[in-house]
């Protein structure tokens, strides 16, 4: 019997099963998660071999893919319930950090945050101050500079700020250090973890970078989640 979800659970997954449609020639990729739990303000590193379904897992959590069965709850809201607007929930409860940052080109650092805030539940009157203060906390002192004019390290900070600006319950980081050299990777990871703690957001990092393993108290292998659940 699966353990009960915590009241402060940022992410709760039960009996999840997903398979891509078969084209009839080969066995389709399948992903099953028996049980996965991540409390608010906690963190977890999810590792797995390349092609093992890490990105599929993230897309399921983001509601961008729909499972054949099982439940995914974000901040205790069932992501795939009929009454749930997945786009709104994603904007309000999730933050994303991508391997290649995926900042909006032609937009300033602050505008990248403001675009994220457009889809949040925060009052509009708070947007500007929230964006400025978060960028300042992450060391971006020229918020109106276009992102393409920033260094790689600065772009990474803007990406972290954008993930946190909407006060999400959960930040999903997909290979967040893959584009950085080891020194910058370490700095970026520390910044991400620190600010998630400050903001009270859970952090789920998906990576196959072994250097990240020592940084996390909780490390899960994707393959092991298929049979035995984890909750902390």
């Amino acid at each position, binding site marked *: 019997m699966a353990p009960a979800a915590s009241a402060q659970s940022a992410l709760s997954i039960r009996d999840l099963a997903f398979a891509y449609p078969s084209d009839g020639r080969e066995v389709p990729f399948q992903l099953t998660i028996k049980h996965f739990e991540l409390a608010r303000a906690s963190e977890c590193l999810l590792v797995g071999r390349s092609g093992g379904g890490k*990105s599929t897992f993230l897309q399921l959590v983001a509601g961008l893919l729909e499972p054949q069965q099982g439940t995914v709850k974000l901040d205790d809201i069932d992501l795939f319930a009929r009454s749930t607007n997945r*786009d709104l929930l994603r904007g309000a409860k999730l933050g994303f950090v991508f391997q290649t940052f*995926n900042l909006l080109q032609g937009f300033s650092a602050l505008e990248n945050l403001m675009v994220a805030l457009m*889809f949040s539940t925060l009052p509009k009157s708070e947007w500007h101050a929230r964006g400025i203060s978060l960028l300042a906390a992450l060391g971006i002192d020229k918020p109106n500079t276009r992102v393409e004019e920033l260094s790689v390290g600065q772009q990474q900070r803007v990406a972290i700020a954008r993930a946190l600006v909407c006060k999400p319950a959960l930040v999903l980081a997909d290979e967040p250090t893959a584009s950085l050299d080891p020194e910058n990777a370490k700095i970026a990871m520390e910044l991400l973890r620190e600010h998630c703690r400050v903001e009270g957001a859970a952090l789920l990092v998906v990576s196959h970078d072994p250097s990240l393993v020592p940084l996390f108290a909780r490390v899960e292998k994707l393959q092991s989640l298929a049979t035995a659940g984890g909750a902390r």
Partner: protein
Amino acid sequence: MTDFTIVLRSLRVRLFSTIVTALLVATSAGLLLTILSLRSAGKAAFERGSGNAHLLVSADQSPLVAVLNGLFYANPPRAPLSQAKVSEIRRLFPWDFMVETQLGDSYRGFPVLATTPEFFTKFEPVVGEPWAPASGKFFDGNMQVVLGAACARETGLRMGAKLVLTHGSGASREGGEGEEHGHVHREYEFEVVGILKPTGSPHDRALFVSLESSWILHAHDRREREGLEGKVTAADLLEDDRKVTGMLLRLPTRSGSNVSSALQQVFDTLRRDTSITVAQPADQIDKLFNIVANVDGIFIALAIVTLFSSAVAILLSMVNSMAQRRRQIAVLRVLGASQSRVFGIVLTEAAVIGLLGSVAGILVSVIALTIATAWLRESLGLIIAPDFDPRASVIVAAGAVALSALAGLVPAVMAYRTSVSTQLRPLG
């Protein structure tokens, strides 16, 4: 930050493509507006020449030819009216005015209108805008000439200058260089006594002399043929010398009105006389414009086709840019934008290009018309007041925006169907 800010930023990122496609829309919308503006303005410019005459009588072959010859100086009339006929018509009604005219001579290609002083005092080239001299006076005797504004500017003639007229419309030059065409009335020199203010009508390109002066010139030619010598005076004129090629007629009207209730009845009465041609200038100009309306329609159709092709350009430009934009759309989706919202953003982008283009088109049209009308006024003396119909501008702009939005449907559907997982990272 709003969806519209995202639209504007996206357009800025693709600035070159945005400008090129907006310019295409501007060109076609501007062309369409220019044609629409000039259509009514061209007619108005023609109507300026007919002035306050209700009827034109001549011996031309048709009423339209009578108007084109008598008021627009297209060609010298084919045949004159006899003095007996002129007298008969004069007695027919209590005319407000009856101005006799004679065409047939020219000066350096500019037509010479021989007429009576009433041409200046009664006939108005444009209703409500009587003749006014810019310098000098109207003629009050023989061998005096008054110049239209465009004629004075183009010939360079000044007050007091002397000139001789040519029989026919050949481009002869008295005492100047170049070949002479047609018979030059060298025996009688005319003096410039007045230069008229511009009227914006074809009359600006004419020279005006008294009827008697013209009769004397032609009586001299007759007498030469008869072997008689010496200068001719008014006393030497025979009844047959007093030729008139046209008559401008106006019926009495109520004060402040240009319309006479008796016009149709008088017109019908005069038309029964098969030896003359009677025309209502305003009606003939309407008929002329009905004839050219088909050509007008072709131009408008061409402009609309151009507008459609600019919409296709928007479609191609946006579809081409979708390859780069899918990543941006995927990011927006991940941040919380719904499929319908990104659809709306892309559609709005196309509409904004259409809007920018049509606003630029209106400006292009206004500037082009201003330059063109200034040039026409300066070079041809033709006053064209473009009819900037705000309603037409709004309709053209709305049409351009709607067409652009329609062109944006395909890229908007592409945006709607963009796979977030494919764009942000290959499937794991």
